[in-house]
């Protein structure tokens, strides 16, 4: 069987961010619809963990369509923000985990570390050297540095980590790369620990994929980011339990399940109706 996410063409969309990280394709596959050609979603998917209303700044949402978010707290924040039309379906990651159950594999080893990334328009300011020192002091086993493509494409950053003796990888670009989350899941399942210098989607994904989490190190600053979306100080106050070089696993799992909306996982048929997708037969 080939990889389920292979396939080209730009699918139809209400919002292009629905296809980030292959989200729409994962949901389409889960619903029994063509994984390479997801139908148009009747709204906008939340595409990353957030401590605000589910969407990034400057993300112009088409009003009149649903907002599909990961957790109920995001919906409540959104309502308080004056937004509406929320439906909680949980993170696409949950659906991926349903599609790709963990198979017996060699023992997990080492730590996968996600240094806080900038995004396409903001570059990161921070001392990579200081971070490397902290990781070395904390992590007992081998370390994989997973860089965002933006950093990965800059040889000088990549080399800094390679010289430190870390394995350096990237899961790919979030746009136009349906294999992103599949690769991320495979990597996370190889590692015993997931860590980052900021609490981000990757940490929650890692917890859900069976890793022990840690959040420590210089949190770095994103250049020119709107203060509303800058969680450097806010997030540690929100979840002090998840910060530190070692974190109580049971607590972390509980929080991750809530933030990823694990209990909101909808059966395929229901998810299909929630996304206002046609019945599988009508498509193929």
């Amino acid at each position, binding site marked *: 069987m080939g990889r389920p996410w292979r396939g080209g063409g730009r699918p139809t969309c*209400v919002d292009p961010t629905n296809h980030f990280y292959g989200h729409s394709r994962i949901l389409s596959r889960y619903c029994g619809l063509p994984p390479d050609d997801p139908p148009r979603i*009747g*709204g906008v998917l939340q595409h990353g963990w957030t401590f605000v209303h589910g969407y990034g700044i400057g993300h112009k949402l*088409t*009003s*009149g*369509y*649903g907002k*599909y978010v990961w957790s*109920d707290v995001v*919906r409540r924040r959104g309502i308080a923000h004056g937004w*509406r*039309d*929320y*439906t*909680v379906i949980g993170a696409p990651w949950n659906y991926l985990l349903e599609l790709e159950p963990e198979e017996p594999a060699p023992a997990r080893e080492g730590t996968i570390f996600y240094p806080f990334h900038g995004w396409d328009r903001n570059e990161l300011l921070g001392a990579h050297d200081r971070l490397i020192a902290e990781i070395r002091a904390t992590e007992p086993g081998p370390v994989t540095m997973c860089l965002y493509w933006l950093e990965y494409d800059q040889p000088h950053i990549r080399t800094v980590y390679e010289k430190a003796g870390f394995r350096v990888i990237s899961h790919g670009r979030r746009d136009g790369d349906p294999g992103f989350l599949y690769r991320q899941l495979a990597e996370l399942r190889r590692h015993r620990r997931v860590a980052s210098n900021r609490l981000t989607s990757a940490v929650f994904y890692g917890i859900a994929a069976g890793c022990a989490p840690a959040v420590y190190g210089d949190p770095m600053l994103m250049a020119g980011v709107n203060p509303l979306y800058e969680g450097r100080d806010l997030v540690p106050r929100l979840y002090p339990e998840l910060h530190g070089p070692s974190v109580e696993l049971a607590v972390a799992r509980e929080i991750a399940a809530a933030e990823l909306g694990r*209990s*909101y996982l*909808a*059966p395929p*048929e*229901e998810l299909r*109706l*929630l996304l*206002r997708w046609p*019945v599988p037969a009508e498509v193929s």
Partner: protein
Amino acid sequence: MNDATNGVRLIGGEMNRWADLAAGRPAAGGPVLRDLVRRFAGPGVRVLVAGPHEPELLGGLLDSGAGVTVMVRSLPDAEELAGSTGAEVVCGALDRVRGGRFDLVVALDGVGRLRSPESAPETWARSVERLVELREDGGTLLLGAENPLGLHRLAGIADADPTTIRKWRPEGVRPSGLGELVDVLPGCGLFLAHPLPGRPAVLCSPASDLPFEAMEAAARTSAASLQTSADPAELLHDALRAGLAMELAAGWVVVVGPGAETLPPALLAADPVGTGRPVVVEVDGGIRTPCGDLDPRVHGRVARLPERLAGLLPAGRSLQRVLERACADHDLPGLRRTLRAYADWVLGLPGQVGVFATPDNVLIGDVLTGEAGFVLADPSRELTAEVAPEEALARVLRHFAIGLLAADRPLPWPPGMGAHELTRLLQVTAGRPADHPAERTGLALEAEILAAGRGLSRAEAAPLTAAVARGEVMGVERLPSHRELLALHGAVTEELRMVRSRARWAERTLAASEKKAARLEKAVAQRDRQIRHLKGSRSFRAGRLVTSPGRVLIRLARA
């Protein structure tokens, strides 16, 4: 000396150009008060009915063999009663009544319409005293009193006669509140009356252990016809939760004299399924007993079998409220759990009973144990024809969906879902397949049962049936109040906003696509020109000449 005219005895203070029965607020009556009065009547009992009461109530008294005297202030009313009933009719004001002692005095309309302009102003307490004096020793007075702070007034039920305010209206027509009532009539049998003081669907004593779900359900059956500024159901719910049902009741019924102790703590009316023959039940110590006429009520294929109401009164939380709460909280996991358990339960019922297991008629017995024990609040309705359980489920979910949309409840689902789409989603959330053939039957059943409840004939029901089939919500559910009307207006405005916004988005996307297409067309045209230009060039023609043998060979090889 009293004068008599047209069989009416005139006692003074009568109003010649006035009518209470034909105009103004409705006369006291309804199934519950009829049942109450019946309990005190019997052969040889001398009864005075003081004030306007509906003819059915008088008829019941006369049928019991009681000797009935009716006293009204309006002469036209008196003449009509004298002509249409076998009762002795007296016309005039309460303060002119001399002599005459009765075993039973019925004044369930209150004292307000017992006085005329000829009467000197007096307090409510004084009028009550006059009524009390009309009793024989050991006789009973059944008195109605409106609560000025009643929920019907707080919900702003429009006065049936909007000109009343400009008409003559005496002072002291009602007590100032529960306090005055109890002061004036201490130690008497007291019942709250709801949702209208003169036509209650519920009579309930403070000692009753009636669960408030039962009271709400009974109030709902008659509240649908009220003109209110807000649906009183919500206010009633809050009043019951706050333990203020007695203080905020629409009114009270007081039993002065013997007999109060023999009355059941609660009397409730049940929906007559469009037959106009209501069913009344009494509730005592958690046991429900249907009263009076136990014959089945049948309208079309919808039947109510009153004897099924006998037995333990089911208790529990209303499933409707539990589901509405889960919707408002966006508790989709909770909705899934509850709806699945509910659907399994409905599918286990015989279909002809299951079609009436709508969430507003279902109680959840014990939620804490995790094993939801569902029970029908009113198990007495059934369809006289065979129905598959799947079809019954399709109907109850359709009914629930329409209700949610009509009330503009906050919903956890994407915006702009119509009744068809929402019903399908509820089916799936309940763990059933989305496109079930039962869906069509469910639609037809919903229309049929709605129509029967309103007493509509098959022909009269056609517009309603069509509206249900189109998935409409407006015109299917009745809007009981101004608040609901406003809510619906809000919902329609919201839908318009959404649709406009989507149209704008589609326009923008289309414009962008057109621009892109135009650009591409232009590029293609330019390429075409270039190609034509190249093909016309000498070097191209020379090249073709040189390569022509090769092309011929390729063509031959392919053939």
